[in-house]
């Protein structure tokens, strides 16, 4: 069976595809930051509880407090890229979602479990001991499972040639395990989350330190060590991932291949510099370099998707339904106004917190 005949006909889009590509890239970048922080923090907390008989450390206490916010934010920031990816690639991702429907749907359940478990970890932290490992473990394993299913879906959608398996298994239990990139890709993402989580700890204590708190240095170093270690491991995983890509998929002489290679090299450079900064316990420069690395890697990921789908589809082929500009404008205005309002709320809240802190 010719897999090309299985690809659904896409719907029209309201404005040019480039806008959606920009929005997708941008919002995915925000999501990946929040998601990495969330996952990285819970992994670090769990490993700590697992390896130190559930002793409480200031860092795990802080993680327990922040985890529910991180989950809420990561989920919310995941909505927008999921929306925009459907606009550009809906006819691929809907198919892969159906093929792995049971796993895909289980994400909702896993998310609720992870979230409530995180709340228990947060609210009952002081009164628990073994429970710390259990609750942080439940959250971590739930989120790792979600990440695994997401990795599967995001790669299954790129492989229409493997979709014919549906005709033997239409019960939603298909995954993309036959893809040699799936394991290195998954590990690459998870390890980057650990790195981001580690640097997040460093940044938090750097901020605390700037507010005059004592005893922060240890935790700044602690976070930097996690970041540097995880990123070094991730170099190896990244090369494994790169090596596992199908031969000939990336041709540096083409525009897409060239850009892929360029941003990958830039990401490598900024990542190396970030590791160096972290090893020198300088979290702020490391954070800047990490943000750049992540941004480059998000671009690399987009170009990789374009390369995979090249034989089947390009967003350029999408047709535009006229009249989409006014709602687009509405969104942009809401977005800008929303960001301003969020900025004001955070600023006001932080100021009040500082004021309270100063009073006490």
């Amino acid at each position, binding site marked *: 069976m010719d897999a090309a005949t299985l690809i659904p006909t896409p719907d029209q889009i309201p404005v040019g595809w480039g806008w959606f590509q920009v929005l997708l890239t941008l919002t995915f970048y925000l999501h990946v930051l929040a998601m990495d922080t969330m996952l990285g923090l819970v992994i670090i907390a769990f490993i700590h509880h697992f390896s130190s008989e559930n002793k409480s450390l200031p860092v795990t206490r802080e993680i327990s407090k922040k985890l529910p916010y991180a989950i809420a934010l990561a989920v919310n920031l995941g*909505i927008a890229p999921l929306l925009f990816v459907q606009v550009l690639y809906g006819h691929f991702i809907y198919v892969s979602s159906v093929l792995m429907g049971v796993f895909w*749907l289980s994400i909702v359940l896993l998310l*609720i479990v992870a979230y409530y478990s995180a709340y228990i970890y947060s609210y009952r932290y002081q009164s628990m001991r073994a429970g710390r490992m259990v609750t942080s473990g439940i959250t971590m394993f739930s989120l790792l499972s979600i990440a695994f299913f997401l990795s599967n879906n995001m790669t299954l959608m790129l492989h229409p040639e493997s979709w014919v398996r549906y005709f033997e298994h239409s019960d939603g239990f298909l995954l993309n395990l036959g893809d040699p990139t799936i394991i290195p890709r998954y590990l690459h993402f998870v390890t980057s989350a650990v790195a981001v989580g580690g640097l997040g700890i460093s940044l938090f204590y750097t901020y605390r330190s700037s507010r005059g708190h004592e005893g922060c240095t240890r935790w700044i170093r602690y976070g930097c060590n996690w970041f540097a270690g995880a990123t070094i491991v991730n170099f190896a995983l990244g090369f494994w991932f790169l090596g596992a890509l199908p031969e000939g998929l990336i041709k540096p002489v083409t525009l897409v291949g060239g850009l892929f290679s360029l941003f990958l090299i830039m990401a490598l450079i900024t990542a190396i510099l970030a590791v160096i900064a972290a090893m020198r316990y300088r979290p702020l420069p490391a954070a800047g370099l990490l943000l750049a690395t992540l941004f480059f890697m998000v671009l690399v990921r987009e170009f990789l998707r374009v390369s995979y789908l090249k034989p089947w589809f390009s967003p350029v082929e999408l047709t535009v339904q006229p009249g989409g500009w006014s709602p687009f404008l509405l969104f942009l205005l809401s*977005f800008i106004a929303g960001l301003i309002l969020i900025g004001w709320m955070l600023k006001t809240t932080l100021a009040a917190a500082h004021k309270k802190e100063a009073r006490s």
Partner: protein
Amino acid sequence: MNYPVLNLDVFGGGLLIALIAVFHVYIAHFAVGGGLFLVLTEHKGYREQNPAIIEYVRRHAKFFLLVTMVAGSMTGVGIWFTIALLNPGATSVLIHNFVFGWATEWVFFLLEIISIFIYAYTFDSLDRRTHLLMGWIYFGAAWMSLFIINGIIDFMLTPGNWIENHSFWSGFFNPTFWPALFFRTALALIFAGLFGLLTATRIKNPELRHHLVRYCALYLLIPFVLLLGSTWWYKIALPPELRTMIFQLMPEMQPYITGFILFSAVLFLGGLLMAIRLPRCMSCSAAVIMVVIGLLYMGCFEFIREGGRRPYIIRNYMYSNSILKQDLQAVRQQGVLKTAKWSREKRVTRDNRLTTGKTLYNLLCLSCHSIGGPLNDIKPMTKNFTPWGLENMIGAIDRFHPYMPPFAGTRLEAKALAYYIAFGLNGRQDPSEPVAIQPLAEVKIPAFNRETDTYVLLAWTDMGMQAITDASRSWMMLPPGANLHAQLIKRGEIPEVVTENVQISYKIDPAFAHPAAAIEFWQNAPLLYGKKIKPDTGLSGNPLTGTMKAGELDFSADLLPVVPYPAGGGYMPYPDMTLTATDTTGKVLATTKTVIPVATEMGCSTCHGGQWRVDGRAGLSRTTADNILAVHDRLSGTDLKQQAASGRPVLCQQCHGDSRFGLQGNGRQLNMSASIHGFHANFLDPQGADACTACHPAADNGASRSFRGIHHTLELKCTNCHGSLADHALSLLKAEQAAGKKRASVLMENLKPEMVADVAEIIPRQPWVNEPDCLNCHVDFQTPEDDITFNKYTKNEAALFRNRTDASGQLRCSGCHNATHALYPAVNPYGRNLDNRQPLQYQNAPFPIGSNKGCAVCHTVPMDEEMHHPNMLHTFRNQ
């Protein structure tokens, strides 16, 4: 057609979306109303300078956060995931058309998250004004989320002008946008009160508890006015056809409509109850119950709204099974399997019926019907159908079920789908072999001596094919009642039809002499016909053995209660009747035999469930009969099944007039023939002559095979004389339409004539009066040039074949040719010459009496004049 279908089986039928959506929508409304509740209650605390109230708000805010942020937000994500799995096509339309609406909603959701976190955790750090402002920001963002989602959800129900212009704004501000917004806002406030009660009733301080419980109860009572007004507005904003369908044509919606009304009252009264001072344990329990009722309330509304969209997922644009309305005809022409991208088999064959049927089920049905699941389970809904029956139902599924999408496939695909459901899922089969019939060992021909016998006795029934219904405890349409006729001819140079000074007696085969032992007609007759009838006698009082009544030309015995059930058991649709003519002294002048054709082989069970009542081949079972009443009740809003169950069987002609039995009906409903043919033609018409034999006992492989005359031997079908079922029905319906009966137009709407180009060309007719005439084809009694007739009917009852006479005005046509459908020479399945005994008796050949120039049957001198009808003095053509 575009996407693969997740094979959900028991989880199909919208169960997943119902579970996630109802829960999410409930919490999501609470998330809106609860925001206002928080800030207003905080205001109240400050206004009353009551720190205990502020403490309550703080605790409630934490509870609110946990419920709305975790369960609410995550199930919201869940809805996205679920709809994309269950209906990717529709999801894609919603995403691509409203992407910036969704994106804007996402911004408000982000605002909600940040503002509610700040609100819940900054009671101590923010000043009052700023803290309240955070609460107001949350409520504003939450209500704006509702504003946006409301536009998109109601777009699916009433897309308005979007259908024409595909404009974002036309779709968003659709005809039900504003009433739905007010309606949902009222719901949100009520739910805020419900959840407020949940926490307020747990306050330990009795005074504070009572104070806040009464305060929360106000949220149930005050928005109720807004709810009532917006419900009314919402209802009238619906397009009229949608309103009719939801509130009149969908009995499935009734429980939800009733539930919504009932729970509205319960919540209002609950609000009043909670305002009364109750002990803590009681108020706590009541609050929990009311929160559960709130969920059911939301569920009822969502089911009505979702159900109201049917048969569309986006009204007037995309059907529930993802087929675009504009593509329907193209899909029908090409076939679903060929059109669907995700179908491996592209063609139905005999060998792949089950697999293609399953594929078709997944593509067309699974989005709404589970297999063995708790929601819209296809199995019980179709359990009454055999594959053949279901095929017909599927082909016209939308005609009397406007909430079902029209079947988009070819006839072969309907067959495969029906086979998969009826056989594959329900294990029902159509008979694959003809019914085995054991013919009589011997057909005895009564004696007749051509040289010495003086009289010829001819006997026949006025209908060669006759059915009765034998489930009279449930309903009655065709009572037992065969009309027997006879003519006595005195042979001679000029033969004479004798009716005076002679007596003709009849005697049924003793095996059939006690029909009251076989059917329950006599027990139920008083309830059906308002009179008690002596067992084994007919409606006119005639027994099965008796004397015929003399008329001007012939003798008759009306409404003889013959049934096809012999005393020893089994089914025999041709009971034997012996007739004897005697003179005034009792001397036997002539004797002959005829069959009384009577069948109970109405194939209702093919579509209405149950089994044959007798011997696996005939008879209406009570189950089948009751199921038919249930369908009647469902489609016509009657309660006949209940009536029958309470011991009052239903006489069809009580409402549907029937000139055959001289019953007027109620004058408002269609006559019996128009109604029953008109309704069933909508389903069965594509089956050609098989449509007729689905109900009439004329199938070649059936247990009766009552179409057995010469026309059958010549391979004519029912449709040769009666037209297709649609033609037949249309002719009856047009007469009823002209008589001002609206239902006729409804039944005619989808019927297309076959014999003529247009419905306008169909000539209206009355049943049992205007029937096809033999002379339409046998013009002037000559060899027919055509074997199809339609639209040309007998003018009145006198012109019917069974009432007509020859040119001399003395002999009944049926006397020499036998009854319709059994014209000589007939081939009876229970004995080849069972129907031909009289021609064999009198002329030793099975052909019409007097054929092959056999005038000597009656005439004692040679005849050379065609005095009975032209073209009769020839050798019989079809020997």
